[in-house]
């Protein structure tokens, strides 16, 4: 009775095809967008690659006016601040993960802490930078005076502090989720054997949730590596290899933010684009690695 012809031929089938094509195009458009982003970065960093070669990576001097484009100060600055921030934030984010995932999973305290952590993730980075500049910098300066260091206030340490505050939510929320997913029978088995709760956390929960926690740390690291505003406002923007914990320095994202709009000369601009390319590649690698680990963690949990 219902001829297939009415479905195959005629108006409905064509609009079906058009609709499907449109959806496919928008999907493919995103792929194309990513490809074009990558190719644009490659093409525009080519003059710098040709002119500077590998010296770009190990050159310690960034003096665009004098024609020297060594990106090492920024690479080191980014790595230094990011890993220091990760180190500072780890105890706190791990504590939040364990507290919310195991000790305090529901009730008003739990939802309060959870929304507060969410809120921390929602504050724009420029506000973090602003706050850091007017509140943390004077604090760090008085600390430096007490320690007898040069009282810059701004510098690697201040930037890492601000970054640490910013990345806590990223590792904490993922850590909470995976710790929450640890099967109750495993925990109860350990408790039945006479383990204390702290021992359950250390011997059962943490090993089980290991890869999920690692994924959260990687996400936080990716965020820290690419962060621009908060860092550039409190790091002092001094284009030298970081001299120490308290000295002013600069990061890859920071130098792009400071100099891109005023970059004259094709090699100068191209060197900045190459720093952006580097940031893109490293950020993407950390990001994909993190997602791989998450996938493995969810397979393990299933």
């Amino acid at each position, binding site marked *: 009775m219902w001829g297939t012809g009415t479905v195959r031929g005629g108006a409905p089938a064509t609009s079906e095809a058009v609709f*499907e094509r449109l*959806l496919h195009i928008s999907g493919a458009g*995103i792929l194309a967008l990513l490809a074009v982003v990558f190719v644009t*970065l490659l093409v525009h960093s080519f003059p710098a690659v040709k002119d500077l070669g590998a010296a770009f990576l190990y050159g310690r001097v960034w003096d665009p006016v004098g024609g020297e484009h060594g990106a090492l100060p920024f690479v080191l600055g980014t790595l230094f601040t990011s890993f220091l921030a990760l180190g500072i934030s780890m105890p*706190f984010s791990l504590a939040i993960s364990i507290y919310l995932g195991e000790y305090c999973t529901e009730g008003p305290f739990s939802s309060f802490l959870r929304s507060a952590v969410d809120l921390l993730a*929602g504050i724009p980075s420029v506000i973090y930078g602003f706050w850091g500049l007017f509140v943390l910098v004077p604090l760090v300066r008085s600390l430096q005076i007490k320690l007898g260091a040069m009282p810059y206030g701004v510098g690697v340490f201040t930037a890492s502090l601000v970054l640490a505050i910013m990345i806590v939510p990223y590792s904490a929320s993922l850590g909470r989720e995976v710790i929450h997913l640890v099967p109750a029978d495993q925990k109860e088995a350990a408790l039945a054997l006479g383990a*204390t709760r702290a021992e359950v956390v250390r011997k059962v929960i943490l090993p089980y949730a290991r890869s999920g926690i690692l994924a959260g740390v990687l996400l936080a690291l990716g965020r820290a590596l690419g962060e*621009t*505003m908060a860092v550039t406002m409190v790091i002092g923007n001094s284009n030298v290899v970081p001299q120490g914990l308290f000295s002013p320095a600069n990061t890859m994202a920071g130098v792009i933010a400071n100099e891109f709009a005023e970059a004259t000369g094709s090699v100068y601009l191209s060197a900045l684009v190459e720093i952006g390319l580097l*940031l893109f590649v490293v950020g993407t690698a950390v990001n994909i690695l993190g997602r791989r680990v998450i996938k493995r963690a969810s397979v393990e949990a299933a």
Partner: protein
Amino acid sequence: MREERRIVVRVAWDRLFSAATALLSYLSLIPLFLILYYIGRRGISAVDWDFFTSLPAPVGETGGGVSNALVGSAVLIGVACVLAVPVGIAAGVFLSEYGKSRLAGAVRLAVDVLQGIPSIVIGIIAYLWIVRPMRGFSALSGGAALAMLMLPVVVRSTEETLRLIPSALREASLALGVPRHRTVLKVILPAGLSGILTAVILGVARISGETAPLLFTAFGSPFMEWNVLRPMNSLPLMIFNYATSPYPEWHALAWGASFVLAVFMLLMNLVAKVMARRWKIRF
């Protein structure tokens, strides 16, 4: 005797551990409250009627407002929405309804990668594509940069929302002989409407605080500007420029702008949360 002592030590360690976890958790909220406290205390006193309606005062004069930055933020977010929302929703529908192909797998990966790109790099792209060819900073380029940041958020939330719609709904429509595209348009999208709106709101929340990609695209401007082809100010840009200036009057304006921006983001997140909750109950 020794056994008993060991148990005492273990129990003590257990207590210590749980106390330390709770303590560290609540300690990490101190920065949040400090930030909110400073924004509130310094910000509210800077916000009055003038703050919303007048242009920034010249250096040395107190008062003035941020009307140009408010308008600029609205225009930039509008441009970003126009560019990102249709494509984002279409791609989200594609991933949820036709999501088993190899193309879909690649698109998912691309969305993940896009989401992970540092926003300053997106700014570089918008500069090279739009600012350079047009020989000037413009709100259009800033909006395009924001659109690229917003796109992955919209795609992912749309996909996740539509996936939660029971397949019985789809099958019921298909069983009635409704073609697939009409099923999507008339059944799936209306059922997921509030979820998709949530996706857009989350996207707007994601971009409304972005500064880095605007530094060399929208660039900022001290004037009221409606033309998307000219440089334009925005709240985050204004906060950055005024915060790093040496003038106390400008710092006051920046605190006020931070307050307004924070409240706006808070509202956006709240609305998204409430909508997500309401939507959940319906299924």
